[in-house]
């Protein structure tokens, strides 16, 4: 046993400590979700059957995808109020063009994703080059996107390729497709993004835009990309919604509901609204926590009308956990920074 190996042991313990501290938000969200879901499965008379898990997963996955979309602009210190509207627009568009032969369906899916990317690009360009606050830009563009959705589908309806819808909503070896979809988004989009220069740039900007500029981070590109990805992920959620409902509907309430709940899910998932820290993976669990509240009310025989009340309480608890750092501040002026 040499001194060096003792030092190495301490260093690796330290590394674990830092890793744990960095993942604290996600771990709290996972713990809350696990506790809630276990309670749900235990109280549920039939237990956690494949079909119950599938239904729960489908419901949660929609919000989880929109919340992942929301996470990325939030990491830069921004906010995207149009995610819910891009979600609705994609739903209306998918119920129109994701149809016909295999080729046509595939082209339709690509078309929907492209529209999501375009919407996100517009948001990003206006925020960066118009130098406007993201909150008002995306409020306005969201209204525009919803206008397109209404024009496309004034009445609820439309249809979607049956095989596509079936694949998106069934289970493979007891794993729901929606879970596979979320995993695909995590491994094919989120993790590569997280480990790219522009992805880390998003964290840098949210952490301190001035310092990021001084360090030579490509600020404009990183910000635009954040909104582009938010648009893309929202349109993926829109595709899943179409597969679940077999139709499209331009409902303003739906879009607004998803936008606001996505912010809640992001916060429960441990991402700071000031930007700079957090993860889209946390947002997945944040979304599932919010969705499981409704299921818990049913099994405990509480009037489901009270769901918003309980969601609100969960949200408040999560936010309080996040603000414990304020206790360490030494100059009161820093409280207001």
């Amino acid at each position: 046993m040499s001194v060096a190996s003792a030092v190495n042991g301490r260093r690796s313990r330290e590394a674990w400590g830092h890793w744990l501290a960095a993942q604290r938000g996600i771990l709290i969200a996972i713990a809350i979700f696990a506790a809630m879901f276990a309670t749900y499965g235990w109280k549920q008379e039939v237990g956690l059957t494949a079909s119950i898990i599938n239904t729960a997963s489908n419901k949660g996955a929609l919000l989880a995808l929109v919340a992942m979309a929301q996470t990325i602009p939030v990491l830069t210190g921004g906010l995207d109020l149009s995610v819910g509207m891009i979600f609705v627009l994609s739903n209306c568009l998918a119920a129109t063009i994701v149809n016909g032969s295999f080729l046509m369906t595939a082209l339709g899916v690509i078309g929907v994703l492209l529209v999501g990317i375009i919407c996100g690009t517009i948001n990003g360009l206006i925020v960066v080059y118009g130098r406007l606050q993201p909150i008002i830009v995306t409020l306005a563009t969201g209204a525009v996107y919803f206008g397109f959705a209404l024009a496309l589908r004034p009445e609820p309806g439309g249809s979607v390729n049956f095989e596509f819808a079936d694949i998106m909503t069934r289970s493979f070896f007891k794993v729901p497709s929606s879970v596979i979809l979320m995993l695909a988004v995590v491994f094919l989009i989120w993790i590569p993004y997280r480990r790219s220069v522009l992805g880390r740039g998003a964290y840098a900007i949210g952490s301190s835009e001035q310092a990021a500029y001084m360090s030579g981070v490509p600020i404009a590109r990183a910000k635009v990309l954040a909104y582009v990805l938010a648009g893309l992920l929202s349109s993926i959620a829109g595709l899943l919604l179409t597969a679940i409902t077999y139709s499209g509907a331009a409902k303003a309430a739906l879009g607004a509901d998803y936008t606001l709940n996505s912010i809640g899910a992001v916060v429960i998932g441990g991402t700071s609204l000031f930007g700079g820290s957090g993860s889209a993976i946390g947002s997945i669990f944040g979304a599932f926590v919010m969705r499981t509240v409704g299921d818990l009310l049913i099994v405990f025989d509480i009037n489901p009308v009270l769901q918003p009340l309980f969601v609100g309480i969960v949200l408040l608890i999560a936010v309080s956990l996040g603000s414990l750092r304020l206790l360490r501040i030494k100059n009161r002026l820093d409280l207001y920074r």
Partner: protein
Amino acid sequence: MEGNAAPLLRMEGISKHYGGVRALEDVRFECDKGRIHALLGENGAGKSTLIKVLTGVVQPDSGSIILDGQSVSFAGPAEATEAGIVCIFQELSLLPDLTVADNIAITSPPKRFGLIDKRAQRRLAEQALARVGAEDIHPFAPVGDLPLSRRQMVEIAKALARKPRILVLDEATSALTAADVTKVFAMLKQLRAEGLAIVYISHRMHEIAQLADDCTVYRNGRYVATFAAGTKSDDAIVEMMIGREYSSVFPPLSEKKPDGPPVLKVKDLSWAGQLKGVDLEVRPGEVVGLGGLDGQGQRQLLLGLFGTLIGATGTIEVNGKVVKLASPQRAKSADIGMALIPEDRKNEGLMLPMSVRENLSFAAVDGFSRFGVVDRKQEESAINEVINLLKIRSDGIDGPVASLSGGNQQKVVIGKWLMTKPRIILLNDPTRGIDVGTKQELYQLLRRLAENGAAILFYSTDYDELIGCCNRVLVLYNGTVTRTLEGGELNERNLVASALNLPPSTASTGPAELAAGAV
């Protein structure tokens, strides 16, 4: 030394104005490979602006930068870094939420399959940290959790990881511990041997004596001289740094010496390593200046008195009674009667979109409201009184403060606090960035307030102001009062010398003594 070959870097005819304020006027600078070049000058001499021009943070109005014989211009810090010019800034350029390793490799991390290779990045960070002798810092620690001195070491490691040809250190050692400074110096000498050009800004003369090969002095935005280190005495250097043009007139001090018991008495005030046992007394009618170089604890001292620092220790007595000031609200309450004119008027002093009227009456509004309702008539007359007193020029008191000139905005900040009828007035560099005419008005106002019995504690980075306005000046160095200057002693030479923590003797100090006195 300076051979015939063209130097690595030459800056010529650099000028930069901010509005009407001249920051640099036809300034030049040269430095070469394998040399450490110190920039000297007092507060506001233009050193920091020059560095900002060099690193692309600000664009000069005129002038040229010649690097390796080629004329260059940088649109931003990223371009300067690409050209091999890296600066360690006073204000840290670190991202608090990111890990040390992420920060060190922020713009050009090692990659595998197009993605950031965390393992290689960690190795790179460890090497960079080892190079500056900061192996104790874990590469996965979030920078925001590190104490200031460790963060400064990360900043230095980050700069080195960028493989600079020209490394600029702007007061980079001011936050370091003595042990770290030794390590950094060894590293800088090593880098010099490897052929880097190092530009070194520090207010610590002994550091410059230890390190520098060449020195260039600036004064008041102008170039003064360049000379080889060790060829001039401390006194000669101080002489070059002072001699600013007198640009303002000061009202005479009143004949009557302020006496009577002190209204404010501070004993052993300490906070977070930035204030180390400050003692002071201010009597009614007295203007006490806080001098010294920027960042020696003056701001923290004022904030501590005004109740914004948590965990400050020591005692504060107001009118002979020990008081506990836990918030600005308590500090301004009737029995204390304290007011703080903050330095950052845009953030801490004013609500820019709100009207002049609202801004003026914010601090004093309790005084003329009954049951929470503002008595507009009383408010109006109080406001008019202050506007007349301060000669605030605006299009009308219901227009937004943002539309006023800088000088008039500053008057609104001061007016707002005068409306509370304070007995203790703390001023944090109140004349920074305002025009000469307004400055003069403020000096006269200070004098009048003192004559009417207010006790004034006045921090300024402008030495002329301290000399012209104050009965006494306390010089702060490294978080504590190191010297009090009064009467005939209160002159620019003594202020500069004591700010640099040089001995008060004015006898000429040889370079040998200077080097010996360094440690």
